């Protein structure tokens, strides 16, 4: 790391030309002339001589926070931060949200390398310091490096103490855009297989690294310039909990939330993400959300209709979950024929995989690892090569929408259906 020494030199050069002390201008230091820890040293100085510029002799060093705030003599951490910051040029603003602004940027050393710079705003209403969703997103993206997970290139702070997340630039929108645009976008089983393959690898990687994503849905699946799908928005993610530590059940956007969370389970596993993955698969086929409840209660009802009613028979222990309610009528588990009639384009194996992701009992639900081993991937049609996947213009605007959103929240008409807040108090 000889770069540290270079940094040291830059620093010294800078110090030589920078004013060391900025004259106090603000009222901040009023009344702050507390007894100085340097009293002795200062009085020694007083007996010596006045300073070279003829300022009158005082008896103590007056603390000056404003001067420190403006100081250009950087400590090592600040130098490292400056170095990160200088690697990127921030360009035009792509969008402005309540949570963050998004800018286009590029690498100074190679202007062809575009990045998206997400500048997280200081939330004045949030009096608890740095926002937990920003902390979660940074924490997990720093650790996860995978072709199907959005890359966090760097994080730096600007002088005004805003966080800047330098993210991979993904100009082609998200999967939701493609699903919804039934007018212009046509895709088939091979395309679905390709997208699902990338999503499954992403979630496998998260789970392999002991991270739960907890907000999988089509508009968190962004599309890179080369067609690669990237899982984004880790604002609700967390590491696997120890068995004795409960977690909050109020996560995952409602339409993609599994029954165990709707029943208030406080101990759960990667199976929660798998349910969401299954619903993304279903949605890719029918091009509309498969189980779209308008309340948590309605969501459970719709799950009963779509999949079957959870009972002690098909899910031992379900009745002990906190929010479990007895259904009026028990709808038997849907059989293969039912799924074939709706999702037949996936073929027998595809339907089999879908059914395994939508197992009511999370213990019987397929794992990400076993999903990757499933036969479906090897059957015809082969997944489309990523460069041949359908795409849509106008993706840049969508990327901006996706990035500036507060994690775990959609800010369009679907907002009301989302796990907006985590219940931290209850999580203790």
């Amino acid at each position, binding site marked *: 790391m000889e770069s540290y020494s270079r940094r*040291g030199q830059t620093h010294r050069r800078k110090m030589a030309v920078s004013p*060391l002390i900025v004259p106090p201008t603000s009222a901040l230091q009023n009344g702050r002339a507390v007894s100085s820890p340097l009293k002795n040293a200062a009085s020694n100085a007083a007996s010596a*001589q006045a300073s070279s510029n003829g*300022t009158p002799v005082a008896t103590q060093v007056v*603390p000056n*926070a404003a001067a420190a705030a403006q100081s250009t003599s950087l400590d090592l951490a600040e130098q490292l*931060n400056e170095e990160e910051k200088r690697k990127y040029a921030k360009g035009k603003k792509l969008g402005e949200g309540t949570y963050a602004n998004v800018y286009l940027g590029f690498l100074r050393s190679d202007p062809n390398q575009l990045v998206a710079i997400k500048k997280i705003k200081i939330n004045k209403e949030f009096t608890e310091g740095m926002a937990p969703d920003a902390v979660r997103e940074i924490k997990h993206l720093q650790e996860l490096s995978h072709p199907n997970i959005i890359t966090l290139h760097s*994080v730096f702070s*600007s*002088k005004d103490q805003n966080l800047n997340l330098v993210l991979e630039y993904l100009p082609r929108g998200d999967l939701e855009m493609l699903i919804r645009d039934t007018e212009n976008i046509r895709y088939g089983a091979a395309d679905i297989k390709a997208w699902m393959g990338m999503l499954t690898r992403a979630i496998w990687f998260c789970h392999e690294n002991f991270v739960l994503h907890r907000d999988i849905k089509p508009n968190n699946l962004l599309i890179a310039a080369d067609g690669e799908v990237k899982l984004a928005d880790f604002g609700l993610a967390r590491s696997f909990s120890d068995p004795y530590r409960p977690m909050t059940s109020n996560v995952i956007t409602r339409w993609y939330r599994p029954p165990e969370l709707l029943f208030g389970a406080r101990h759960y596993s990667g199976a929660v993400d798998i349910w969401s993955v299954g619903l993304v698969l279903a949605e890719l086929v029918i091009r509309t959300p498969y189980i779209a409840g308008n309340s948590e209660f309605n969501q459970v009802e719709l799950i009963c209709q779509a999949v079957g009613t959870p009972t002690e028979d098909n899910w031992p222990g379900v009745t002990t979950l906190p929010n479990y309610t007895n259904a009026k009528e028990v709808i038997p588990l849907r059989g293969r024929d039912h799924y074939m009639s709706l999702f037949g384009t996936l073929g027998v194996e595809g339907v089999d995989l879908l059914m395994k992701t939508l197992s009511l009992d999370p213990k019987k639900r397929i794992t990400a690892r076993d999903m990757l081993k499933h036969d479906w991937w090897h059957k015809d049609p082969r997944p489309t090569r990523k460069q041949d996947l359908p795409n849509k213009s106008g993706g840049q605007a969508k990327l901006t929408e996706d990035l500036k959103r507060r994690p775990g929240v959609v800010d369009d008409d679907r907002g009301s259906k989302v796990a907006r807040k985590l219940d931290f108090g209850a999580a203790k």
Partner: protein
Amino acid sequence: MATEDVRYRQSSQYRLWSFSPSHLQTLREKTTSLAATNISNRLRASSPPVDPLPDFLTPADEAMLLNFYIVDLLRAAQFLELPSEIQATAAIFFRRFYVTHSLMTYPPRALTMTCIFFACKAEGYFYRIQKFADKFPGITSEEVLAAEYVLCQGLRFAFDVRHPYRSLEGAMMELRRLGDFDEKRLVRAHGRARDILKFSPLLTDAYFHYTPSQIMFGALAMADEGLLQRLLRDAFAGQSESAKNQVLEIVQNCRAMLEKEPPERRTTYWDASASKETMKPLNKKLKKCRDPDRVDLVALQKARREQALQKVKAKTATKEDGDVFGTSNGAKIDDERGAKRRRVAEGGDMFGPPM
């Protein structure tokens, strides 16, 4: 990402927070001397200039004080009854922060509180700031939050710390599976190793030099050498003796490091008068040489926010596109803006060619 080793090398703990001993030493020396230079300049420039300058802390002083404050931090974290991982995360945050900051620059007492609070946040164990501050008389929520941003920057925005606790549980399960040892021996070793892990690696540089499993093996070796040997024999079955010895050597080095701060030292830090006698003069020395402008972190934070607000005002007044660059200050910005304006005027795409 096949093996666990490959995965570990992707972690921020490895990428940003692992150093060779000599590198770590260089960093610390640089941090200390940089702080001394900056504070000297500050004191000389005050009116009247401070003369003679105080004695500054040496890197060795800083190391001793650092541990003193970590023990303090652990005590406060225990008082809050936080899980051991969160206690350890807070301690490691503190250790990492002071690799690139001097104790003379940022007051350690305040940082212990900020580290505990932020470790809770980073571990998803959310504590209301007011509830947190109320637990400690004499500390306000403002003070706890004042250094949060500086802390995050000092951590290089890496909030994930890998601990050896889970791997110890794994090793114990493995030993039970092997079935060569009686339960009493295993329970004793388990308890002892856990006690070591909650203290020794946090008071030494183990996290900077060793992986979590190496640290776990080091602690297990301290607790019961025979158990380590048995596990290694099993893990390296069918492999060369030299491969095994290579690992063993690393583990023994780690163990030697942990042994410098065994859990028994806890009480030495807490109440032995000997400790007070070494720490008292050091704390006194620190009081004399610390940065006068950063003693009050709340005021510092206010000033920083104030400054940011002024910058925003100036920005909205000028409505300059180039302001979004905002990376440097003073005359340099004008140069950059000028250059950019020229580029735009010439019709060049400032973001380079299309993709």
